[in-house]
């Protein structure tokens, strides 16, 4: 699992108000080279949760990203290459993602996170309107 994916994935347990970002426990990390595409990164940058990326990278053993970033830094190839490396080239092969609210661990095996819930963790599909809008905010990220 790359940090690109981690940056979008949230804990989906019933009742959790903010399940993002998931905390990373790394047991095995692999590095796989990916072609550098600066335009793609520049387009993606505004949609990234930067802190989650920085913390995630650190959990995977890469501490080169600055704590804060803004779009002016996108002109620097050096900066873009660091983003590229952290976002796309680091893979969590074995480990776990932990829900920040409940501490529940979602295992990651062979690079694939398992987000399947136990029955008591599943969100009920019969929801009052207010909860539905909360869910939509979580899913779409939009108020």
């Amino acid at each position, binding site marked *: *699992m*790359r940090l*690109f*994916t981690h*940056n*979008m*994935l*949230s*804990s*989906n347990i019933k009742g959790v108000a903010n*399940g*993002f970002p998931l905390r990373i426990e790394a047991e095995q990390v692999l590095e*796989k080279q*990916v072609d550098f*595409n600066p*335009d*793609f990164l520049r387009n*993606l940058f505004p*949609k990234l*949760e930067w802190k989650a990326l920085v913390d995630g990278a650190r959990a995977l053993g890469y501490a080169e990203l600055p704590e804060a970033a803004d779009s002016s830094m996108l002109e620097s190839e050096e900066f873009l290459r660091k983003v590229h490396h952290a976002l*796309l080239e680091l893979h969590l092969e074995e480990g776990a993602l932990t829900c920040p609210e409940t501490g529940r661990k979602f295992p990651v095996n*062979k*690079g*694939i*996170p*398992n*987000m*399947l*819930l136990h029955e008591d963790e*599943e*969100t009920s*599909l019969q929801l009052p309107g207010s909860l539905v809008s909360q*869910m*939509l905010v*979580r*899913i*779409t*990220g*939009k108020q």
Partner: protein
Amino acid sequence: MKLKQLESMLGQLQQFSNPKVELEQYPTGPHIASRMLYTAENSFGDVNNKIVADFGCGCGTLGAAASLMGAEQVIGIDIDSESLEIASLNAEDLELDINFIQCDIRNLVWRGSNVDTAVMNPPFGTRTKGADMDFLSVALKIASRAVYSLHKTSTREHVKRAALRDFGASSAEVLCELRFDVPRLYKFHKKREMDIAVDLWRFAPKTNQGN
């Protein structure tokens, strides 16, 4: 990539070895998959350099097609670990780089609007009622540009109404009607092979601010 070439490469993919009837696991054949993604890119520009999600990816055929048609990043999501294993092997065989997540689509919680295009061949809802609509509803929330999906032609009016009225789509268009050949996979299939008429749909979500 030419359509014939795409179709031929997809034909090399491994399919379900033990399909699970309760999940309605049927392979998306190379004929349909190639046409879906070829059209998505050449008629609408929805694939090349984009972030594409394959919901209910199964053995990964649509995700692989998206990758071959130039998607920058592909995410394949499925509930079943055996399918995901086959999908991973398939990606490796074609030297494709696809991100996989194991998740029940109804419980997927996704931050942000990073996904441009969703592609899917969802269950038709013959086993779990409403499964096709669950998939469509989630896809329209997550994709910011377009959703491509297959639904039985017999459900055309229902699908259109649900998409536009209930799931916030700004448009719902049947691109073409295809024959989906369902090979005799399960014991309850009486015929050796069956053709189902399916519509290839393109849905656009409501335009978001700043898109």
